[in-house]
């Protein structure tokens, strides 16, 4: 025990002496969170849209005015189709609507025949479907508000209500996920480098020659990063709630507990990587590939897990960030749901156990 304490002290000094480590705990998290909060907005706005007016009649002018008055679009009137087609290829416009020369005649006809044409640049499918849908909605509203037009009220109206995020701010969804990414970088990436550094520099032999057991050596290396990760988690939570306006519906204790439990599989994964490859360059690549990118793509924070193919869904089961994201979203937005926490905690512990088990099999105390 005293040996473990001494080793931990040595490792902690090593971490503290390294300005990079402190940068990680105190500078990286706020920068990442701010970037996620401000750069990653899923709320579409300021979309550049062209309106081709081939008809000068009053109806056509009134529809063009309706398009120009919308909140989310920046409308650019254009005379000729040719011109907008070029702008669409260049990416300066995301969509355009054509009000054809025989617009008024088409309006009278009804049933089936299209009165206007909407063309969207689908090289980004999300923006395209939003923009086209918005243009079409504007057109339908304009149709229904025309004087004399038979008001076409639907018999069934469908109301939507979002629980846990009523204003539908994308920031609220993204912040818990970005916190999981920060913690993955600290937990997995850095620990992957610590152990492989000892091997690469040849100082591992020196450590192995000491009477300390392998378990004590490993534990002493992990504890400082565990502390660093916990500090970062508290910092992230504080920044999100106090500055970025994320609510904390659940309890702070639950948040802390979840974060500390998440560090177990995260650190375990870093440790496993460094015991598999004893070279920092490879370790960092593997950590990015199996730690950071899955946390970004397979944790359910950007892309819905249930929509993925079956095989990928099974792979997400060993991504610790998946469980952390699920619990974090709940603790921030919904409140304490212990049945969900316990399920996620059990899963994180199981994944952590798996990683530590593999490490144990791979790292015998010997020199080869």
């Amino acid at each position, binding site marked *: 025990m005293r040996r473990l304490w001494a080793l931990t002290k040595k490792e902690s000094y090593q971490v503290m002496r390294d300005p990079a480590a402190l940068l990680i705990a105190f500078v990286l998290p706020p920068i990442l969170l701010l970037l996620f909060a401000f750069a990653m907005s899923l709320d579409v706005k300021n979309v550049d849209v062209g309106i081709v007016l081939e008809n000068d009649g009053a109806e056509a002018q009134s529809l063009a005015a309706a398009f120009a008055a919308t909140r989310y679009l920046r409308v650019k009137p254009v005379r000729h189709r040719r011109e907008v087609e070029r702008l669409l290829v260049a*990416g300066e416009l995301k969509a355009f609507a054509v009000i054809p020369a025989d617009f008024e005649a088409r309006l009278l006809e009804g049933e089936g025949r299209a009165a206007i044409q*909407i063309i969207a640049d689908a090289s980004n499918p999300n923006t395209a479907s939003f923009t*086209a849908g918005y243009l079409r909605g504007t057109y339908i509203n304009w149709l229904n508000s025309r004087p004399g037009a038979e008001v076409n009220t639907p018999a069934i109206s469908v*109301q939507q209500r979002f629980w846990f995020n009523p204003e539908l701010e994308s920031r609220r969804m993204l912040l818990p996920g970005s916190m999981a990414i920060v913690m993955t970088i600290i937990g997995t990436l850095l620990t992957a480098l610590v152990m492989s550094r000892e091997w690469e520099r040849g100082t591992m032999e020196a450590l192995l020659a000491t009477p300390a057991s392998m378990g004590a050596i490993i534990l002493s290396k992990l504890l400082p990063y565990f502390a660093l990760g916990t500090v970062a988690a508290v910092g992230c939570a504080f920044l999100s709630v106090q500055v970025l306006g994320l609510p904390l519906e659940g309890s702070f204790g639950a948040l802390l507990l979840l974060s500390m439990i998440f560090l177990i599989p995260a650190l375990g994964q870093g440790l496993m990587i460094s015991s598999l490859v004893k070279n920092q360059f490879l370790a960092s690549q593997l950590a990015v590939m199996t730690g950071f990118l*899955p946390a970004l*793509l397979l944790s359910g924070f950007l892309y*819905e897990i249930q929509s993925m193919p079956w095989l990928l869904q099974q792979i997400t089961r060993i991504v610790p960030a998946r469980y952390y994201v699920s619990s974090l979203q709940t603790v921030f937005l919904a409140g304490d749901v212990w049945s969900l926490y316990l399920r996620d905690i059990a899963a994180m512990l199981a994944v952590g156990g798996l990683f530590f088990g593999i490490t144990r099999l791979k790292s015998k105390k010997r020199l080869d």
Partner: protein
Amino acid sequence: MFDRLSASIVKEFLMFWRDPKSRGLLIGMPMMQVLIFGFAATMDVKNVDLAIINQDAGRWSQELIQRASSAQFVGSTRYFDNMEEFGQAIERREVLLGLHFPADYSRKIISDNSGEVQVVIDGRRANSGQVAFSYLSAIAAEMDLDIKRAQGGFISPPVAAVRYWFNSNLEFRWFILPGVVATMSMMIALMMASLSIARERELGTFDQLLVSPSSPVEILVSKTIPPLVGSGFVGCLIIAIAVFGFGVPFQGSLPVLIAAMFPFVFSMVGVGLVISSVSNTQQQAVLGLFFAMMPTMLLSGFFTPVENMPLLLQYVAEASPLKHYLIIVQGSFLKSMPLADVLDNVWPMLLIGAVTFSTAVLFVQRRLQ
């Protein structure tokens, strides 16, 4: 001087190529990325767990439930008697959304054409919730038309014809895989470059390089070539996988795209070398790499469009080489972008590369004194 330069380039290549594991990674990592992105990154919504809270006894709620639960995007349907039970299930993330029919739903449709159904969505998963909601409203709108047709004398208004250019079926993969070409080239270039000097420094061999007759510029040029070749190779590999493996159409000019890859990779290698020249250990370099990589990626428009960002960040985004290269890659794949538009995005990358590369030279030179 040329002999010396080529000798150090050969040395840099050997340092990387010697190790079978790093060779494996150069192939394995992009392959894995393409597969994950190709299959995981989807904005489609499938296998949705739908909840039904039906307090209505009429036939119209049954009709809508029938249509909704047999829709393609629904994976399972669960029935709840009241909102409390439903509330517990949605809290535990067992269902994504619930259709709630109030008691007077069918009666109101018959009496005054104003049935109202409520859809409650888990806001923690608002992205997929919104998509699922739009599917549900389309189903309701279709049923609405059927009700009106049944009542007789109804003429639907003239519609708006919507066409999607460049990607008529809105395949998300066609958008994401060209982006992977760019992000993977970036990651390989950044990683190889940012660890290069840091590793020599950590192992103590950097001082040997500094006392060799090579000038700082020569050292940096020799360190630029392997990442340039490595990430160029990876870029081409992913283009091939996207086109032949996933059937993403390639409309533009391949030589232009490959030529545009060089200024891009050059600018990223420049960033990597700056990181590497200020780091003392590889761990610090990896950290620096994240500092550089995250903003470059998040501001590039790969995850969310640049137009959505606050104005100030849109200007900052201009400094992200990835933003310019993404426009070129996506334009080349789907739009057969004209050369003039490509060049518009090439010069900013060259500018960024020139700035970062000379900064790196400066840092290494200072180190010499």
